[in-house]
């Protein structure tokens, strides 16, 4: 699942929303990191509708223009559930790896040192002590 798709489903999880509502909610939930373009949003909504994850909810007329609201279907809820489960598993795996690293005494400083010396490639230049300490 690509990021815009994930945020559209997430924005629609709590309530049916129209286009601008989805863009606002995705921006708010991601802390301003995600700005959906209108064309991208509707292309994704069309695709999600065709796949049965999203469906039109209701139409409202504002300023003479019809505003269509969309909602998640039960398949859409299931898809978002599956995606969050997958992401949670990913996060858990990464968290466990970082915890193991700290337990072996490398700590946050070790992480910093490995980042500057790039020890995965042993031939990189760097202070000799740092290279020994890494991995």
């Amino acid at each position, binding site marked *: 699942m690509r990021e815009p798709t994930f945020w559209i489903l997430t924005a629609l999880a709590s309530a049916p929303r129209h286009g*601008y509502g989805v863009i606002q909610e995705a921006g708010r939930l991601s802390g301003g990191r995600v700005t959906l373009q*209108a*064309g*991208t949003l509707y*292309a994704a909504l*069309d695709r999600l509708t*065709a796949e049965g994850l999203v469906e039109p909810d209701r139409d409202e007329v504002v300023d003479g223009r*019809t505003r269509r609201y969309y909602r998640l279907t039960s398949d859409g809820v299931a898809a978002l559930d599956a995606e969050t489960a997958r992401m949670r598993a990913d996060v858990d795996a990464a968290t466990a790896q970082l915890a193991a690293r700290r337990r072996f005494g490398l700590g946050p400083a070790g992480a910093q040192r490995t980042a500057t010396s790039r020890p995965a490639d042993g031939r990189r230049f760097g202070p000799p002590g740092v290279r020994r300490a890494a991995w």
Partner: protein
Amino acid sequence: VVNERLARRYRRRLWAYPSGPRRDELLDTLLECAGPDRRRPTVGETVDLARHGLRARLGRPAGTAVVVFAALIAIATGFLGAAVANRLAWAAAPPLPSGAAADRLASTAFPGLPVWGGGDAPAFVRSGDGETIRYGYADYWVRHTPETRDVAAYTAGVRDRLAADGWRIGAEPAADPDAGTDGTRHRAFWATRDGLLLEYSASYWPGRPWYDPDGFVTFQLSHRENAATIAAAVAGGLLGALAGWLLTGWVSRRTEPHPGSGGGLGAAAVVALVLLSPTVFLSLNAVVGEPVVAPFWNGLATFAAAPAALSGMIAVLVLSVVGAGPLWRRVTAVLKRRPSAAVAVVAVTAVLAGAGWYRAADPAWAGRTCAPAVPPPARADPLSRVARVYVDVRSTPDQVNLIQAGIFGVLSTAIAFQRDPLTTEFREVYCGGARLPQAVGRTLPWYFTVWMSSPGVLPALEAEMRGRPGVVAVQRVPDPD
């Protein structure tokens, strides 16, 4: 308060989308996103709308195959659009040099020698075997003198004089590796200037009898692609690609509600694209270091024309089935209700077709007899490359041989003769297909047909034939191609 000017600008960008409620929905969202003091859409929004709008025109939002097909079809129709636009632009191409410009060129290349040929040519000409076309050309040539028989030295001089006159030499003079080993001397090079291509070739064949030519020193002058024809090709290509994309989208969206329609349409598209692919690939087949003498759509006008036409038929069939679906359903519904109407339609169509065929039938069948003129009237385009030499029926075999040798003395691609007044061809020439009494036919001059290398060869042919015993007339005739 709605910003009307911003709305108008958004609406213009929303033309990328198919017409329908989606345009209004997007406009609403875009205006809500824009905030009160925005004046114009951002570049990012414009790109986003163009990209997703063109995608939305294809329908089937969850599919990827339709995008691939639309892209391939757009390439194919873009190629066709470029070919058609390029061909149309060539109709406005200026004529090849004539008059003072041609004289100056002739005397630059061949100073002090009588130069034959020159003049204009059609934009495109077909090779003798019909397998290729190339840009039309005019031949310029001189007959050998003691000076020109030293082919290598004379060619070097021609090359230097042309280069000094502003011609860019494309390939330095070289001998044709296929030239014979029987003492034949040969040199060729090519040069370009101001949208013109000059292909020089000189041959000397020693040891020929007096009545046969001992070679030629010649160049062919033809047009090259110019800014206008290239611009037309680019514009036509873009329009063709857009049209192909939009038509694919139209078909895809109309058939979207029918499950399983995608497979059939995809198969039709594959067949159509495969049939069209040879021409597209052939157009990329330019050889580095050789002059470009044929347009890029060469294949479309020659060997690949039939598969391309088949491909077009598939497209027309798909478009008409998809477009006429409701109409066809209405027609079949009527026919089911009244089968007698169907019989009547078929009968009337058959009668009309039969009557048309009857009218178009052979005039000879209608019993018309002609009174032939010598030479027969021939209304030929001045750029026709075909001529006839009419020969008196009483001429001796020696006279005929000398006439034939004289014809070989001018640049031609093929010659043929027709001595039989009973043939359809002979009857066509003298009587346009009407009946020609056998006794009259036997007294009429028979003829050589000469496929001249270029239209400007005719004066040289006329000069060769002038005063030769047995020659009745020389005439430019319409090109059957």
